[in-house]
């Protein structure tokens, strides 16, 4: 029954997984660029952003085609509308990885006055959140989606640590200001990536349950 439609939904899943992998790669390249002064990786992450944008357009076109031709209802409608919302967050993550890489490019050749230890931690955690949120979507795994949402607290904690470092750096020597601000920006981009991954996970929860995160079970439509 509706095998063509099911085939197209499966294609949508595959494309989301592919876009998720592209984003993960971008985050890793941006991290490599910033941590190890790797210009090549910075360039790759920046140019890769176009591919991510293109992927977003393709997924959006597929979703609109499905809405038009299949007139989905119930779980199909939730799935397609969630996918449409998710790709916006995914595209923004791509932008932020490119933004981090731009800063990395600017810092190449300059000696770091600060210890970057929290940046790779933020990078690793946010990349994992992205992967797991897409995984949760494909497997309809509510628990995994909730884990991603919870993990955002850890990203926020790391961001707070970076903020403290930055304040200290500027306090110790105002000449550190420029690099401290760059450092702060990079951390902020990672913090935003965490927020976008959380948004993705929240859309996963909606696609599975029909409720937005935070909505009471008793607020179930029609009850």
């Amino acid at each position, binding site marked *: 029954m509706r095998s063509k*439609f099911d085939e197209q939904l499966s294609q949508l899943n595959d494309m989301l997984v592919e876009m998720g992998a592209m984003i993960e790669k971008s985050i890793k390249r941006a991290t490599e660029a910033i941590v190890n002064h790797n210009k090549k990786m910075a360039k790759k992450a920046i140019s890769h952003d176009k591919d991510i944008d293109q992927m977003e357009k393709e997924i959006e076109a597929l979703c609109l085609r499905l809405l038009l031709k299949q007139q989905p209802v119930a779980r199909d409608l939730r799935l397609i509308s969630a996918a449409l919302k998710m790709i916006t967050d995914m595209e923004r993550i791509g932008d932020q990885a490119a933004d981090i890489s731009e800063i990395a490019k600017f810092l190449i050749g300059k000696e770091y006055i600060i210890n970057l230890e929290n940046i790779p931690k933020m990078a690793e955690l946010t990349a994992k959140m992205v992967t797991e949120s897409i995984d949760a979507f494909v497997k309809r795994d509510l628990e995994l989606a909730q884990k991603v949402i919870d993990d955002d607290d850890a990203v926020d904690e790391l961001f707070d640590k970076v903020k403290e470092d930055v304040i200290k750096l500027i306090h110790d020597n105002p000449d550190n200001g420029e690099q401290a601000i760059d450092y702060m920006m990079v951390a902020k981009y990672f913090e935003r990536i965490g927020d976008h991954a959380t948004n993705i996970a929240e859309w996963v929860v909606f696609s599975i349950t029909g409720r937005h995160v935070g909505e009471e079970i008793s607020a179930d*439509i*029609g009850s």
Partner: protein
Amino acid sequence: MKFVLSEVNLWYNDFQALQNVSMDIKANEVTAFIGPSGCGKSTLIKSLNRMNDLIEGCKITGFIQLDGEDVYGSMDVNLLRKRVGMVFQKPNPFPMSVYDNIAFGPRTHGIKNKRELDEIVEKSLHDAAIWDEVKDRLKKSALGLSGGQQQRLCIARALSVSPDVLLMDEPTSALDPISTGKIEDLVMELKKNYTVIIVTHNMQQATRISDKTAFFLLGEVIEFGDTDQIFSMPRDKRCEDYITGRFG
């Protein structure tokens, strides 16, 4: 509540077409009945104004109350059908003029005064959103109208006897999208003054025009609730499989 149904069972000889159907149908709402062919939705709609009385071997148990009054009690069937009008899948205008089609019901109920009849005809045609299209051809045969116009004429004919409830059995399945759109707009307008119960195989139509939806399967009401809930988050898997087209 306009209709209250309680444990309604219906048999056509040995075949049980409805099983323990209980539901409350609110006044001034549009209630859609959906489900696969042969699931009992048309049978139930016909039970509401006792159209099944005409079928030999039909037996019904349980209660159907209209405004608190037992439909299968001592109620006058002609008056019941005046209160609960019906529009069918295929437009079925009488082979007479547009005017006489509309005046037929009121005349049957004893209205003879020409001015009164004129008023009823004009109002009914207005309410059915077809007045502008037929006002200059009231004396011409209704059979000359298009399918969509004929269906709105049939709605006007049902409205001419001032019913409370309008039953519609797949009223747009034989119509083109433009006529369908007009009927759908009309239904949403009519619910201000009438209670509408519509059988439809068109899921999008049910989502567009109804407030409540009942999903039928093998003579049972499987799920009944707000249309928005049924089409976004149905509770029953069979209902979800049906509306998403994966039934079977």
